């Protein structure tokens, strides 16, 4: 039994894990960077320790410091969340050496799946179909890659060997543009993972990104929790996920589930993991990679299966057998997640930094919000722009979309720009409603119109005017009553603050 778990992460996922621990009677230890002193995961944890300055390399990526904290405060286990150290086999190894349980797979499985080229080879040998691409294992030079590329054929993808989440990924349409793209892919991979190694994969056109959640215990039991459809992406970043996929039928679902279990078994996988597949128009599916950790989008699986994935991760790490057998896993209704990012969809999805001054969360039936932000939270440029996840469940996919529209409209985030209008436009899209989309849909066949109703524009104009008018009136009164010792601008600002 764990008495104390250190959560080596920040933001919504740190809060998510913290809640699972609290609901299991386990004490929680947060770690934080200087930028996150006031963050929710720090405030909600039982203990909290500073790691270092804001940049990840000096804080959340400091494996040594994190293990030192865990040792000093007597934590039994470390949950890495996603990102940061979650897929570093050396970190998992170091935990083990320090006598601390790493809540995740064995280092060997992380290593086998972490090197994307090795992973391709391993699962291919286990009979799992892979996307055609580079078949060698090991570092390849630009020259090697440029000479292999024509055999694979264009368009193709450059992908980071150490990668995931679209970082260090580039689409290549021709040999001519390949050298410069190789360079930028390597640079991005180097900065994201500390490893600039890349490989090539054929670009499967019109494909859908569908992944299978698996769970495995230390007793050889491996089950899958069905699929998540993640084809709504922009620049290889997932924006919306849903389960079940509108594209799969029971037959294909079962086949993919079985193959996913096989892939996990090929590396003696333990704990929660996800096998990502590409599925083409003809329903052929190809292994893409395995994420050897909790996914951002795990909640939609929780909502349709009823399994609390984080609690189950903890149980497995404690050496308990899986609570579920494959036949216990049913699909109940439909769930969808919108990732709420601090970015401006009307300005090229430019990240938006600043302070969140007010938020109103959508609530009520079928709505779950996983968030690490709050009024007063400062969005800094140091971390991911994802500030919360809006997750919705309903009995059918159609009801889920309608509920998501309702929840998006209720969600208020004031102070920074968010991509909520993107999600609203998506939920109104007929193609999306019809389930007719692939991974290129957002970038190629979807436009976010401002689509401003003239009636609503007029209402907005009237409301803005009335607020401005009230301010003018009150500011005038205020100035009459007081000596003005500061500039007008300051008075208005002060007045503003006073009336909040």
């Amino acid at each position: 039994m764990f008495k104390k778990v250190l959560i080596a992460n920040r933001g919504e996922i740190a809060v998510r894990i913290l809640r699972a621990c609290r609901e299991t009677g386990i004490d929680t230890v947060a770690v934080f960077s200087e930028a996150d002193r006031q963050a929710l995961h720090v405030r909600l944890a039982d203990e909290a320790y500073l790691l270092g300055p804001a940049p990840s390399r000096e804080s959340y990526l400091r494996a040594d410091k994190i293990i030192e904290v865990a040792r000093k405060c007597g934590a039994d286990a470390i949950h890495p969340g996603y990102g940061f150290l979650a897929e570093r086999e050396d970190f998992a190894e170091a935990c083990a050496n320090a006598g601390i349980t790493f809540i995740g797979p064995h280092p060997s499985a992380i290593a086998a799946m972490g090197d994307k080229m090795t992973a391709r080879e391993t699962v291919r040998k286990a009979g799992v179909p892979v996307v055609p691409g580079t078949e060698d294992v090991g570092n390849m030079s630009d020259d090697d890659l440029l000479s292999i590329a024509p055999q694979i054929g264009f368009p193709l993808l450059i992908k980071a060997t150490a990668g995931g989440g679209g970082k260090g990924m580039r689409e290549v349409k021709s040999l001519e543009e390949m050298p410069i793209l190789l360079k930028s892919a390597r640079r991005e991979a180097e900065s994201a993972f500390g490893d600039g190694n890349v490989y090539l994969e054929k670009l499967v056109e019109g494909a859908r990104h569908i992944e299978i959640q698996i769970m495995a215990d230390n007793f050889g039991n491996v089950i899958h929790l069905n699929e998540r459809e993640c084809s709504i992406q922009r620049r290889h970043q997932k924006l919306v996920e849903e389960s079940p996929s509108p594209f799969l039928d029971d037959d294909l679902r079962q086949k993919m589930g079985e193959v996913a279990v096989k892939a996990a078994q090929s590396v003696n996988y333990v704990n929660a993991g996800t096998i990502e597949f590409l599925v083409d128009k003809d329903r052929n599916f190809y292994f893409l990679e395995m994420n050897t950790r909790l996914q951002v989008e795990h909640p939609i699986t929780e909502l349709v299966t009823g399994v609390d994935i984080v609690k189950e991760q903890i149980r497995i790490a404690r050496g308990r057998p899986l609570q579920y057998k494959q036949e216990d896993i049913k699909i109940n209704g439909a769930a969808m997640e919108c990732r709420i990012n601090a970015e401006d969809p009307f300005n090229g999805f430019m990240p938006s930094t600043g302070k969140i001054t007010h938020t109103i969360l959508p609530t009520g039936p079928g709505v779950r919000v996983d968030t690490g932000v709050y009024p007063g939270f400062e969005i800094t440029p140091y971390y991911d722009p994802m500030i919360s996840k809006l997750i919705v469940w309903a009995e059918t996919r159609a009801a889920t979309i309608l509920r998501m529209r309702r929840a998006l409209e209720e969600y208020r985030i004031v102070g920074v720009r968010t991509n909520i209008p993107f999600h609203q436009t998506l939920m109104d899209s007929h193609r999306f409603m019809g389930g007719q989309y692939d991974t290129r849909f957002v970038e190629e066949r979807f436009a976010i119109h401002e689509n401003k109703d003239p009636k609503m524009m007029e209402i907005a104009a009237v409301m803005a005017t009335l607020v401005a008018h009230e301010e003018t009136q009150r500011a005038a009164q205020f100035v009459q009553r007081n000596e003005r010792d500061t500039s007008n601008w300051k008075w208005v600002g002060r007045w503003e603050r006073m009336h909040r």
Partner: protein
Amino acid sequence: MKYITTIDDKQYTVDVINERHVSVNGKIIEVDFHTVSGQPVYSMISNGKSYEAYVYPEDKDWQVLLHGRLYQATVEDEREQRIRLAAGAGTAQGGEFHLKAPMPGLVVAIPVEEGQAVKKGEVLVILESMKMQNELKSPRDGVVQRIKVQPGESVDQRASLLSVV
């Protein structure tokens, strides 16, 4: 009190007649307008229809978050508009555009050169921040001038990067 309120390119002449009446472009409407105390939330009922909006200042404008959509409104009284138009006559159209870093970050690339003509929407600078590469684009046609940064350089928020004249 009469105001000229602009959203996007649309102008509204809004006259606040009294507490319950406003005219918009000459058409009088009845409004029941309330603040939710302690919050920048406003509720307006007009002709039975209910509207809730967050209205808050940003720079010199007002941001209106209405039914999940964000509108950016400029509200001026007649005097302010006269002054701005008079002042703006000289510089408004021909003014320089100064590209500033919207956030701290690393300059990854500058795909333009000084003296180069650019079109509206053309990428001027690629800035890495929040683990993303962000393309900063030109808001209008013009010629690139005064590039103040180099690829590989870290910049602070609002740092001047270059100008489009």
